[in-house]
């Protein structure tokens, strides 16, 4: 039941913002469903596959929205390589220093989005 509620919230988030929804799935799996941290990230990735597939299809059916295959490949294929590297990194190192680096990168992007 809790898992279904988590999925529902993640789905809205995912389609609204064009993200996978892992931002809400991972903490909710840990806090509400008592899944250990690293298992929560692996399980979230698998769930996102279904979420993003549904989102891609539904947006594709929207007449005025364009799902661009070329651009998706341009960022998505390097990301697949990055995900293999990131998963391997997660098993071996503390993610703390990397968290801070990504926080800084995202803060910069947020400022850019708000200013442009």
């Amino acid at each position, binding site marked *: 039941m809790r898992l279904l509620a988590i999925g529902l919230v993640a789905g809205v988030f995912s389609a609204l*913002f064009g993200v996978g929804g892992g931002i809400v799935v991972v903490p909710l799996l840990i806090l509400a469903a008592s899944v250990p941290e690293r298992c*929560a*990230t692996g399980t979230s990735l698998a769930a996102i596959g279904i979420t993003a597939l549904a989102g891609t299809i539904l947006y594709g059916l929207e007449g005025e929205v364009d799902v661009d295959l070329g651009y998706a490949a341009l960022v998505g294929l390097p*990301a697949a390589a990055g995900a293999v590297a990131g998963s391997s990194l997660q098993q071996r190192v503390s993610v703390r220093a990397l968290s801070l680096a990504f926080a800084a990168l995202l803060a910069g992007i947020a400022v850019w989005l708000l200013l442009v």
Partner: protein
Amino acid sequence: MSASAVAVAVALGFCAGILAGLFGVGGGILFVPTLLGLGLGQLDAEATSLLAILPTVVAGTWRQHAYGNVRWRAALLVGAASVVGVQAGVLIATALSEDLLRRLFALLVLGVAAQLAWRSRRPSAYPSEP
């Protein structure tokens, strides 16, 4: 599209994948701004980001499954329920103006940055989780 724009997009795509592997996300938080930078509108960027998430999470899931970190039953339940939420999300996103959606997205990025910063200060780090 210039060669430098392609290089930046590939680099940010790779970073999005690392983020995905480390934190169990799809990488959309980096895909969407990258696609906006390449000139896509907010809705097109979001829809295209969802497609880019697919190869990312397939690769990530494949690795995490090998490490024994995927609980398939939970993943299928969360994923199946998410499809209902996705329908609502698409309706909301297409009803909002792209400008408002972009601002809301910027706030989301700020929120995630804050969450990551907070997380980096917490004692629990993955390799030796409790």
